[in-house]
Structures are given as C-alpha cells and as structure tokens.
C-alpha cells in the first residue's frame, strides 16, 4: 500500500467504531506505525477528526422534541379479529358457512387464469396491505434477494424507475407460478409497485411493449411485455403520473 492510499484510508478511520476490524484499516494502521511521517500526519488527522466529531455530537437538540414526538404518536393497532368475543361467538356459524363455501368452490371453475385476473389480484393485494420479504432502499439488494429465492430477477426497469429509491420486495405466487414484486419509494408515503411474471404463465398477457393502462381501485396500472417477461406497474395518481416512470 503506498502512502497516498494509506492516507486516503486513514482519513476515514474512526477509532471508537468497529472500523479497525476492517482489514483495509488494519493494514493502513500498521503502515502508520511503521512510517513515522505517516504516523505524524495520522495523529494530526485524528485530532482534527475528534474536534469535528465533538462539534457534531454537541449539536443542540430542541427542548421538548422527544415529548412532541411522543404526544403526536397514534398507535397503529392491527386488530386481532379472532380474539373479539363477537367473532368467537360467530365461529360456529362461520364454520358452517365455510363448509358450504368449500362445497361451492369445488363445484365452480377455479380462479380465472386470465391476465386481467392476475393483474386484479396482485394490485388489489398491494392496496389491501402486504408484508415485504426484504425492506431496503437498494434496488440491487432487492434484485439479489429475488434471485436467491428463485424468483424473476432479470427484469428490465424503465430508466425513471432505476433512479427511484427502493422500498423493498417480495416473492408472490400466482397459480403456483412465481411473481416478483419490487416496491419503489415515491416519498410522501406513496409507493409504486412493480410485478414481474413469466409471460408464458399468463395466456393473454399484453403482447406489446407499449404500456396499456387501466384503473384498479385507487391505483393506476400500466402493463406491458418485453422478452419473456410481463410487467405490471401500479401507482397513485393518474395515467400521466404513472407514465412519467415509464419514459426516460
């Protein structure tokens, strides 16, 4: 390691953290011990760093901020509905209805496999509430996670989507076929949802790469196919808003 590289590394060394466990730092630190000139330079840098760090850590926090935050807290309690007495008393009746329902279900054709049914299912699920398998802003990590789960990870994102921070991702199932879900953070508590499926698993998937738009619940939905993949992108706002994330 030359002196210049050692300096670049030592410049960002923080002794009060776990930095020293990084081999890169360990090597540069060793070099600073062996090289008196580098050692002196490093000592000066550490003094400078300590001064700046102390000033950062001494930034005054407004009085009452913690209390303000706590006062504005409204807990989101996810109702455990089966624990409610009224539901318990209805359990027996529900069981009967369920039996009838099961009998009816088996007498009916199975859930439609059409593209419209697929699109409807995944987009409505996104609106009803869902749990992501991975929560990260890093779209690369989402792709990597989907790949490790055997889900579609070779999707091609439109350029505007590539620039958005991620929110997370999940692996969904549609008639025993894998569907990848990638969530993008639009800020202001809004998300865009991208679903990627195998084109061959959706008999009447859109054939064109030009998106087709529709409205499902509160979300505007664009769908298109490219190569072996079919894409469904759902987001808030109107067609014009969603379209902004499809064109460079």
């Amino acid at each position, binding site marked *: 390691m030359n002196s210049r590289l050692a300096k670049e590394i030592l410049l960002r060394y923080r002794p009060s953290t776990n930095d020293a466990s990084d081999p890169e730092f360990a090597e540069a630190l060793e070099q600073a011990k062996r090289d008196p000139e580098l050692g002196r330079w490093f000592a000066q840098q550490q003094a400078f760093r300590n001064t700046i760090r102390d000033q950062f850590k001494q930034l*005054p926090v407004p*009085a009452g901020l913690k209390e303000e935050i706590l006062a*504005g*807290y409204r*807990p989101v309690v996810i109702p455990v509905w089966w624990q409610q007495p009224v539901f318990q008393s209805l359990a027996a009746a529900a069981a009967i209805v369920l039996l009838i329902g099961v009998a009816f279900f088996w007498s009916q054709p199975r859930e439609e496999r059409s593209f419209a049914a697929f699109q409807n299912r995944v987009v409505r699920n996104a609106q009803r509430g869902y749990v992501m398998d991975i929560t990260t802003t890093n779209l690369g990590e989402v792709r990597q996670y989907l790949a490790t789960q055997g889900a579609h990870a070779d999707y091609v994102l439109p350029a505007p989507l590539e620039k958005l921070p991620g929110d997370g991702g999940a692996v969904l199932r549609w008639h025993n076929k894998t569907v990848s879900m990638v969530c993008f953070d639009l800020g202001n508590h809004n998300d865009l949802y991208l679903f990627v499926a195998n084109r061959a698993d959706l008999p009447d998937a859109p054939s064109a790469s030009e998106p087709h738009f529709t409205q499902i619940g509160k979300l505007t939905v664009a769908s298109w196919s490219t190569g072996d993949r079919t894409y469904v992108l759902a987001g808030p706002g109107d067609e014009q808003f969603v379209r902004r994330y499809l064109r460079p």
Partner: protein
Amino acid sequence: MAHNDNDSRLSAQQDFELLVSRYYSTLYQFAFSLTRNEDDAVDLTQQTFYTWARKGHQLRDASKVKTWLFTTLYHEFLEKRRRQVRFPHHELSEVNQDLPNIAPASVNELDSATVLQSLARLEETFQAPVALFYLEEHSYKEIADILGIPLGTVKSRISRGIAQLQQILTHDPGPQPARRGRPTHE
C-alpha cells in the same frame, strides 16, 4: 379480550417510547446537518417516527431499525428538497451574516455552527456521507444502505468530503447563516 387489546396498545406505546428515546437526538442531528434549519430538522425527525409507527411493522429484521430510521429520514429530506426546489421560498431570518475567518491553528476552537456551515459548502454529494461519518452511528455498509449508493462510492465520497471540509475549515470557514430561534437544551 379488551384487556389483550389494551396490552398490545400499551406494548406498542412502550416500544415507540423506547425507540424515540434511543434515536431522536442522533436523528435530529443528522436532520439538522442536512437542512441547517431547526424547524425543518424537527419536522423531519417527527415525520420519521410517525412513518415508523405506520410502516415499521413491515420490517422483519429488528437489528435494522436504526438504519431504517436514518434511511427514512434521508428519503423524507430528499423529497422535501425536491419540492422546495420546485417552489423555493426564502425567509429574512436566513440572510447570511459574516463570520471571521479561522486560522489553521484555531481549528480546536471551532463551534458547531461553523462546522455545519462548512459542511453546507461541501459538494452536495459529500454532505450526507460526511455527516453520517462524523455522527459515528453507522458502519460504512449501513451508510451505503441509508444513502442507497455502493460501498465503494460511500468510502470515496467520505474521504473526498473530509479533505474538502478540512480545506474549507482551515482556509476559509466562510459566512454563517443566522439560525431561527427555538429553546434548546443538551
């Protein structure tokens, strides 16, 4: 059963209080280093915790709570800044005032305001990485996650940012903006 419901509310409230107690100061400091404005930093910090109250249950890995909070705050900041660029507003209290230059020998006498003002003069891409570096709350990998950029880029930006900060502080700390008043402690 209502008892169970009360218990879960109480538990959620206690978890939230614990989380706020643990992280509100450093989150505020990060927010302030980004905005250099007390009211905006307060808003960002509060908004971050309310986002957690609404969406935090989606996070499965409890060990990533701190990174999640900082990431959320940074996203909120970027979003707010995007809106402000579109609809910029200026306040009289933000008019700059001159500060005397600081000689290299007096680096030890720097105060927080001067350090922050110098941070504001860094290239924009260096500001958040350098602030997270000095707050010493995160590993480099976590900083990369928060900012959504590769690890190598984080390291490079921090090194270059520190060098630039030193240059500014030892040669020309520059003007300092007036800060808007709010009672403070700590």
